[in-house]
């Protein structure tokens, strides 16, 4: 349970080695670069934004091309692939990519281009098909649609709404003979007609036709419809073959998927490097790296750097006002919860790392809220399976998540056994329904059934709450001891301890409270008297000292009184732990309900099948809902009740200059930071 001590680091080196030094630092991932020196006439920062922009563009091209490729050629991914982490590459692979760089960028661009070609051709096919639909009724017309007539005659080509017969049209136009009417095609919606009349009559014929709602075809061409149709079909074939060719080319790039991924990673790494370069102070020949490094990493990196480059290496203690980044050091049991602390807030200046103490309570509280050995076993086994199966490749954050739930699951098994809950009461129900067992319960609880004695469970929950809160208070004392505020420990911690503990004793001495809680406590009168005196003294102490930052004695007492009023806060904090009872009961009771429902269907030949189905679905739902509840409320108890007693946070997590890639990692650099 600790934070690693950090040091300021300065590296002064020659510009000709800049690339190599930076790449080495990036692969080691142990230095957080921060600009801590001011620019002057000789040393100033260079502008890397142009390079960074082009890198960002390439990253987005690579990502886009991968997306496109995935829509054409699906990548085979198993459901568990999220656990398997990034692939490993050697430094040589990384260096050799430089040669391939340009062609791969071109490939990515080509993929984007191809997807555009395919999209355009698809739009073309659609447009041409619409034209074919329009032309199809005219296919029997052997003259072009834009035919206007000959020297002596005028032709009208168009459609009339609704079906018409030849006689009906001739009837309408009977006055203007000679003329020729052809019906090209006729459907329920429209009749396509060709009317040829002499030039003298053309205006009148047109007028009558207009009266019949004659409209010109939406297309016009100088080829006959049949020819035009052939042409359109050819164009569609062409567009379709374009699509096929482009798709084939696209699919051929599926083999290059890994190169595209690497391109994305490669430029992500370079981008990070240039971000750092942008913050470095540089003169004509020299550049300076400044930042933070964990004390334990100094020796190795110093040896490595000084042995291969000409440079000056310097580390100093961080200054008082430095915002020193936080790097945790915890054992495997507590480490998974660093993320939980971070999502509250990393330890602020002068604060200690609360992870280890928290982890004990975290697992215990989670287990108590879920409190079913069956569910605990499922969670723990699933996590253990993931951890073992992918033990070589799994990334650290995923590993920590699995480990956290594995420990939570183990704690759940423990409490499940204490309160005898195995998928609700599955053993009893199965025994009774299928085997006629009458000697129930089959597995009696180690302690008691919470459903039968809710008051005892409530008392137990609050007792755990008191322990949790007092631990928080002790942490405060420890922190004050570290900052050498010894009197503060007495004022802010010891007085409260005495007050709370003697308060508990006084409460337990009253008959009403013991009756409510259903417990028997025999306290001798002497103990009670001592508790009363201790409570009075400590309350007085709190009134006198807890307002000590005010000089004015009157104000000071008022503030002290207000601090004493904080006892009501402790009361509500302790009551808050009653959620341990409520959530624990929720799991058990819903599990029992599921089993009862299943038992109702258990008769008959198919009974066991229905029984199994209901049990599986019911318990899966119950597990999901209650695990969520346990997770949320464990966090709440830690963040609000526990951290509220001593912890403020406000620090910054150590973010080393490293390799934050998506698909690959470089083999030797997985110590810190290079994980995301």
């Amino acid at each position, binding site marked *: 349970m600790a934070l690693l001590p950090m040091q300021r680091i300065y590296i002064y080196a020659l510009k000709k080695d800049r690339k190599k030094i930076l790449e080495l630092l990036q692969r080691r991932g142990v230095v957080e670069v921060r600009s801590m020196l001011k620019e002057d006439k000789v040393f100033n920062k260079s502008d890397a934004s142009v390079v960074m922009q082009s890198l960002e563009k390439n990253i987005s091209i690579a990502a886009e091309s991968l997306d496109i490729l995935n829509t054409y050629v699906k990548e085979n991914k198993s459901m568990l692939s999220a656990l398997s982490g990034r692939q490993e590459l050697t430094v040589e692979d990384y260096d050799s990519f430089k040669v391939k760089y340009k062609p791969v960028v071109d490939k990515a661009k080509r993929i984007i281009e191809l997807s555009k070609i395919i999209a355009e051709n698809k739009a073309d096919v659609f447009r041409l098909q619409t034209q074919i639909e329009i032309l199809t009724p005219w296919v029997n017309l052997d003259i072009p649609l834009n035919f206007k007539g000959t020297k002596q005659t005028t032709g009208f080509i168009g459609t009339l709404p609704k079906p018409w017969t030849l006689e009906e049209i001739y009837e309408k136009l009977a006055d203007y003979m000679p003329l020729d009417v052809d019906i090209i095609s006729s459907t329920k919606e429209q009749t396509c007609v060709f009317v040829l009349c002499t030039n003298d009559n053309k205006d009148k014929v047109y007028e009558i036709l207009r009266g019949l709602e004659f409209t010109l075809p939406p297309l016009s061409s100088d080829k006959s419809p049949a020819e035009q149709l052939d042409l359109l079909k050819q164009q569609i074939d062409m567009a379709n073959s374009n699509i096929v060719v482009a798709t084939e080319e696209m699919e051929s790039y599926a083999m290059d998927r890994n190169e595209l991924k690497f391109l994305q990673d490669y430029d992500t790494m370079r981008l990070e490097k240039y971000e750092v370069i942008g913050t470095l102070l540089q003169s004509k020949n020299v550049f300076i790296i400044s930042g933070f490094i964990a004390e334990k990493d100094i020796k190795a990196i110093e040896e490595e750097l000084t042995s291969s480059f000409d440079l000056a290496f310097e580390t100093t203690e961080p200054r008082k006002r430095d915002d020193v980044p936080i790097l945790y050091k915890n054992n495997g049991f507590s480490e998974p919860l660093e993320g939980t602390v971070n999502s*509250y807030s990393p330890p602020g200046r002068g604060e200690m790392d609360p992870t280890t103490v928290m982890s004990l309570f975290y697992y215990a509280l989670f287990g108590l809220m879920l409190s079913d050995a069956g569910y605990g076993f499922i969670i723990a086994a699933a996590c253990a399976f993931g951890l073992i199966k992918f033990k070589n490749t799994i990334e650290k954050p995923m590993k920590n998540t699995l480990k956290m739930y594995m420990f939570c699951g183990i704690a759940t098994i423990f409490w499940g056994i204490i309160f005898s809950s195995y998928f609700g009461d599955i053993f009893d129900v199965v025994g009774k329904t299928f085997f006629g067992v009458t000697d129930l319960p089959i597995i009696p609880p180690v302690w008691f059934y919470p*459903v039968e004695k*809710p008051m005892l469970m409530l008392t137990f929950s609050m007792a755990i709450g008191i322990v949790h809160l007092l631990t928080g208070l002790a942490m405060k004392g420890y922190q004050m001891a570290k900052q050498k505020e010894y009197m503060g420990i007495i004022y802010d911690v010891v007085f409260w301890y005495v007050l709370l503990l003697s308060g508990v004793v006084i409460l337990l001495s009253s008959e009403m409270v013991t009756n409510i809680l259903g417990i028997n406590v025999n306290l001798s009168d002497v103990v009670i008297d001592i508790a009363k005196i201790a409570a009075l003294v400590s309350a007085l102490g709190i009134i006198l000292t807890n307002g000590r930052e005010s000089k004015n004695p009157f104000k000071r007492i008022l503030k002290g009184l207000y601090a004493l009023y904080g006892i009501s806060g402790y009361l509500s904090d302790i009551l808050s732990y*009653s959620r341990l009872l409520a959530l624990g009961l*929720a799991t058990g009771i819903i599990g029992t309900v599921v089993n009862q429902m299943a038992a109702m269907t258990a008769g008959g030949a198919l009974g066991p099948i229905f029984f199994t189905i209901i049990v599986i679905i019911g318990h899966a739902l119950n597990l999901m809902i209650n695990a969520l509840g346990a*997770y*949320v409320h464990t966090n709440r108890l830690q963040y*609000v009740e526990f951290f509220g007693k001593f912890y403020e946070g406000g620090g910054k997590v150590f973010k080393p200059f490293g390799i934050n890639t998506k698909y690959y990692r470089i083999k030797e650099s997985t110590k810190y930071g290079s994980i995301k």
Partner: protein
Amino acid sequence: MEALNNYGIVLALLGAALAALVPGMASAKAVSMGGIAGAGVIAEDPSLFGKVLILQLLPGTQGIYGLIIAFITFSQIGVLGGSSDISFVKGALYFAACLPMIIVGYTSAIRQANASVASIGTVAKKPDQFGKAMIFPAMVETYAILAVLISILAVSGVTGLNI
């Protein structure tokens, strides 16, 4: 009075049924509020699904607490097998015992949904602040938990009374 005693079980069952019904109704509404807000966030950034889902489900627990109270009452009044000989007064007491869950379950679910929706907004803008955003709706739930606690204690307490 003798005739009234036949109705004791009715009152008790009414309380149990309402304990499942009212908070269940409220939770359904509350979860749908979260779902509507969440769907908008997912449209922008599908990777937030897991976090948004947790926030959406938080106000769903009131319905479950209601179910617990209903179930405990059922088992105490003998609806799930056993005798159901309950006096009028006792039935009324069971009804009263269910009231905290019925009323607080309803109001807290809706209020918690408001906090959840706001937290979903926070996560949409700052996904790394999920830990804190989750606590706000969880604070509201405290009162639902206190209500379920009192109802549990009251229901199991009434059973012991000899009236």
